[in-house]
């Protein structure tokens, strides 16, 4: 299978984005995106596990028989998550205090099993690494967008407490967009997650539609092929 890295990157970031297109991993996506910072933290932790799982599975994919592949992949992913959790807790304890809640959630992130199953088990290690990074970054961007929208509408801030996650040098990210905002609780609570995600999906579709129309206008010959 000839796969260009450009294709992989495009797939992960936009065309086949975990949240926006595949609509996988919605449990963690909706659960933790009360703020953009939380979305970023969850996204980064997931990216790390996703990339590692992809590479490890790709490295011994030929030895895994199809009948037992799912339990093998699940064991690999669960082990990775537990290792990341232990190491963060021991040596990056402040980060763990912020991310700790999300790390356990990564185990139930079906996007990881999905990528391992649909990509890493059929490709060599380097493309699997690229796919893990691209999918992870795409997921992170979607999480930050979702968290950002909910945080701005819900509490009038953006990237609150970012210094806890990224260190004090990133304190400049913390913005108060609407001073003296009373807050709009609905957006921070779970229903707000569904609402914000719905609007994000709709917004993405509008963009895609517009791009399609523009492509048609530029080259009318395509109209016969367009469905």
């Amino acid at each position, binding site marked *: 299978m000839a796969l260009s890295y450009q294709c992989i990157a495009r797939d992960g970031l936009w065309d086949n984005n975990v949240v926006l297109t595949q609509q996988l991993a919605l449990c963690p996506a909706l659960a933790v995106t*009360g703020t953009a910072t939380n979305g970023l933290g969850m996204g980064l932790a997931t990216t790390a596990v996703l990339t590692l799982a992809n590479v490890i599975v790709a490295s011994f994919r*030929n*030895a*895994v*028989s199809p*009948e*037992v592949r799912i*339990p*093998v992949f699940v*064991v*690999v992913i*669960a*082990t990775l998550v*537990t*290792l990341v959790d*232990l*190491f963060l*807790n*021991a*040596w990056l*304890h402040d980060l763990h*205090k912020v991310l700790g809640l999300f790390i356990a959630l990564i185990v139930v992130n079906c996007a990881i099993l999905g990528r391992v199953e649909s990509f890493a088990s059929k490709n060599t290690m380097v493309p699997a690494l690229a796919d893990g990074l691209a999918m992870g970054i795409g997921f992170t961007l979607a999480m930050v967008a979702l968290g950002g929208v909910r945080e701005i509408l*819900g*509490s009038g801030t953006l990237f609150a407490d970012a210094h806890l996650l990224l260190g004090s040098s990133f304190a400049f990210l913390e913005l108060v967009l609407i001073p003296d905002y009373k*807050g709009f*609780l609905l957006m*921070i*609570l779970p229903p707000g997650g569904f609402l914000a995600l719905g609007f994000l999906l709709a917004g993405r579709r509008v963009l895609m539609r517009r791009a399609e129309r523009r492509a048609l206008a530029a080259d009318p010959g395509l109209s016969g092929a367009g469905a």
Partner: protein
Amino acid sequence: MTETVLSGSRSRIPYQSGLLGLVSTLAAALLVGANLVTREPIAQREAEDLRASLAQVVPDALHDNNLLADTVDIRDGAQVTRVYRARRQGAVSAVAYRMVAQGYSGDIVLLLGVAPDGSILGVRVLSHAETPGLGDRIEAQKSDWILGFSGLSLDNPATAGWAVKKDGGVFDSFSGATITPRAVVAGIRRGLELYRAHRRELNDATGSAAPPR
């Protein structure tokens, strides 16, 4: 050649169970190793966290001992509460312990610091899952409501006053969230009652210090 041999045996049950066993064994070995390596640092980090929260309810000036090393477990029915004792020149100058209150959504873990006369030195919320924006005003970072308990005791206000205003007590509740402050007030009151019941035992200066963990 090897590929075909491999794919032939791959579909057999022994190969599959062997593979599953091997993967699980490797995973277990990795986890055991990681646990051994990280156990000590994690315990250290957690002790630091605990020390930091204890310092919020028991001022450093009150003690010259290590609170974590001077603990006593008190029994109240089936409930065992670990109490950290602060001493100055051998005499107990304060105690601190956790209380769990039933909040709107799950447990609210409180840390109480109590002076020998039974008055509160400080209260902090260690963890909770209350509604953000409503119930989370019990956190010291979000509002100074929780600081209002310092200096109070079971006699101040009198027992009937240990409730939120809505229930005829003296404590404010937040608009939109009554259950959370009600739970915290009840938890603190239970904490003080626990202290009163075990006062002598806790302030016994000669009492042997329990070994750390």
